[in-house]
């Protein structure tokens, strides 16, 4: 077998998942010794539970545990999953002007968010391309909590800091705090709410998708957001790091083993099934939120007023339509992977796959990628090239697996 030695083969998993960190490939990055990698508060806990640890964005993270990635992915949607996502970077922006400040950097209508609600947004560059995607929450008018990708941490923080300095030099009141004292856990699936309810007195049935609360969970003050990266109902819980292991244990115990510790391998399958972008694969510096199908995330007022980096490019795309669009694919044969070419039925190249794999819940291949506008309609028959051979496919809407977000009826 070749993909390198078998050990290196295992690394190819993380090679694909770690694309978010777009530094040039260097041997050190992928084959770094354990000593070079950062560890989350749950590292020993993962190892004790049979976690297979791999390097990811400079951290040692579990790619899977004793159960297979397929079983783990299915279990999330049937029961539930607990993910350690403490490698991601949580931060708070504070001050009288934190809202107008953030609006210079993201496409969201931050001012229009009700306190205690949040949304997925995109940090843009001068060309309208995506620097990163992020879930932002307006806690109050003077406090915004946001989470950014682990692989983009240095880039994002440098970007925010640079703009914050300029903003403050003009008299703006904004400051930040990076929550390195906290660990982020993600609890997803049908059992997420019932299990978490055992650990808090607050009525979780009143916390809807996209909403946020600061509350006591299992004896410590946590930031709770009803959101996730799987399409299931669930939460992201920011807990003081010294209580992270206890919280993880409590969640697993309360679920009587039905909620399982779940690794990055299954996490990637789940988000793919949910049609969600992975920054570094499906969204990059040169792709705009309009092209990525995230126009819904650009606030209505922002579409009229702009005021964020690259607004001129994005507003023009909103008017004229983008030249490429992100779409979903089903295909036969081997799973389509990142960089596979997409051809029309006559063999002309019309696009490229940016993420793909086998869907454990649908038991078929799913993929997403970009095609020329005009060729993007659902049902369009395509040919996807895998290892030089064309395989039949068709464009389809996303999510591939219906979402189950908890929304008011």
């Amino acid at each position, binding site marked *: *077998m070749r993909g390198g030695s*078998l050990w290196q*083969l295992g690394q190819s998993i993380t090679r*694909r998942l770690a694309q978010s960190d777009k530094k040039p490939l260097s041997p050190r990055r992928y084959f770094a010794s354990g000593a070079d990698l950062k560890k989350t508060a749950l590292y020993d806990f993962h190892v004790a539970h049979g976690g297979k640890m791999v390097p990811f964005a400079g951290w040692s993270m579990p790619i899977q545990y004793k159960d297979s*990635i397929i079983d783990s992915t299915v279990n999330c949607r049937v029961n539930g999953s607990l993910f350690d996502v403490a490698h991601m970077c949580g931060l708070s922006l504070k001050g009288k002007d934190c809202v107008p400040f953030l609006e210079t950097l993201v496409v969201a209508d931050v001012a229009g968010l009700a306190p205690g609600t949040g949304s997925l947004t995109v940090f843009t560059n001068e060309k309208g391309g995506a620097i990163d995607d992020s879930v932002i929450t307006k806690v109050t008018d003077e406090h915004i909590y946001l989470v950014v990708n682990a692989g983009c941490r240095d880039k994002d923080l440098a970007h925010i800091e640079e703009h914050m300095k300029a903003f403050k030099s003009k008299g703006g009141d904004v400051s930040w705090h990076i929550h390195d004292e906290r660990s982020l856990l993600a609890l997803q699936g049908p059992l997420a709410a019932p299990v978490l309810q055992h650990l808090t007195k607050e009525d979780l049935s009143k916390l809807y998708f996209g909403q946020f609360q600061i509350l006591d969970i299992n004896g410590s003050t946590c930031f709770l957001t009803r959101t996730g990266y799987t399409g299931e109902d669930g939460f992201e819980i920011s807990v003081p790091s010294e209580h992270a292991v206890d919280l993880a244990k409590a969640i697993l115990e309360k679920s009587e083993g039905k909620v399982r510790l779940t690794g990055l391998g299954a996490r990637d399958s789940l988000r793919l099934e949910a049609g969600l972008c992975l920054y570094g694969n499906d969204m990059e510096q040169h792709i705009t939120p309009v092209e990525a199908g995230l126009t819904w995330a650009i606030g209505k007022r922002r579409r009229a007023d702009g005021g964020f980096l690259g607004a001129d490019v994005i507003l023009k795309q909103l008017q004229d339509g983008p030249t490429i669009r992100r779409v979903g694919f089903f295909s036969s044969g081997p*799973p389509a992977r990142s960089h596979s070419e997409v051809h029309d039925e006559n063999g002309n190249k019309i696009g490229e796959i940016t993420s793909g794999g086998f869907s454990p819940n649908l038991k078929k291949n799913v993929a997403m990628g970009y095609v020329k506008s005009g060729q993007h309609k659902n049902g369009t028959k395509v040919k996807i090239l895998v290892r030089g051979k064309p395989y039949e496919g068709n464009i389809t809407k996303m999510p591939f697996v219906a979402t189950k977000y908890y929304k008011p009826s």
Partner: protein
Amino acid sequence: MALRMWASSTANALKLSSSASKSHLLPAFSISRCFSSVLEGLKYANSHEWVKHEGSVATIGISDHAQDHLGEVVFVELPEEKSSVSKEKNFGAVESVKATSEIISPISGEVIEVNTKLADSPGLINSSPYEEGWMIKVKPSNPAELESLMGPKEYTKFCEEEDAAH
């Protein structure tokens, strides 16, 4: 029955199993990274394929160690019957949930049969890498090539060294 179970637990400890009672032993094995089974009576390539030479037919597949590292197989690409394979050249690919790996032929020859069950059940490679997960049957063009392959003990050591190096 008792004798078979004793044999299986001993074989498990020694990391070897006898192909004669293989089909009864497999369920008794827990296929984990430390205890991948290496079958007696087969030859192994350092790219983790095995060859079973019986008369004029050589059957080829990938080892338990390989399938364990690869993870769940979701698709297998195999050559057609009557095509030829060459020693150390790739003849197909195995797709797992997250990665693709080429399969390298340990010997040269003509493909006389392909395991069509793998089209619908690629997971056979994981559950039965030495039996139901066989991939191709080849008429060897140069039986001497088998001499340069590893025996079970050598291959076991090779795997341990490879794993330890990481």
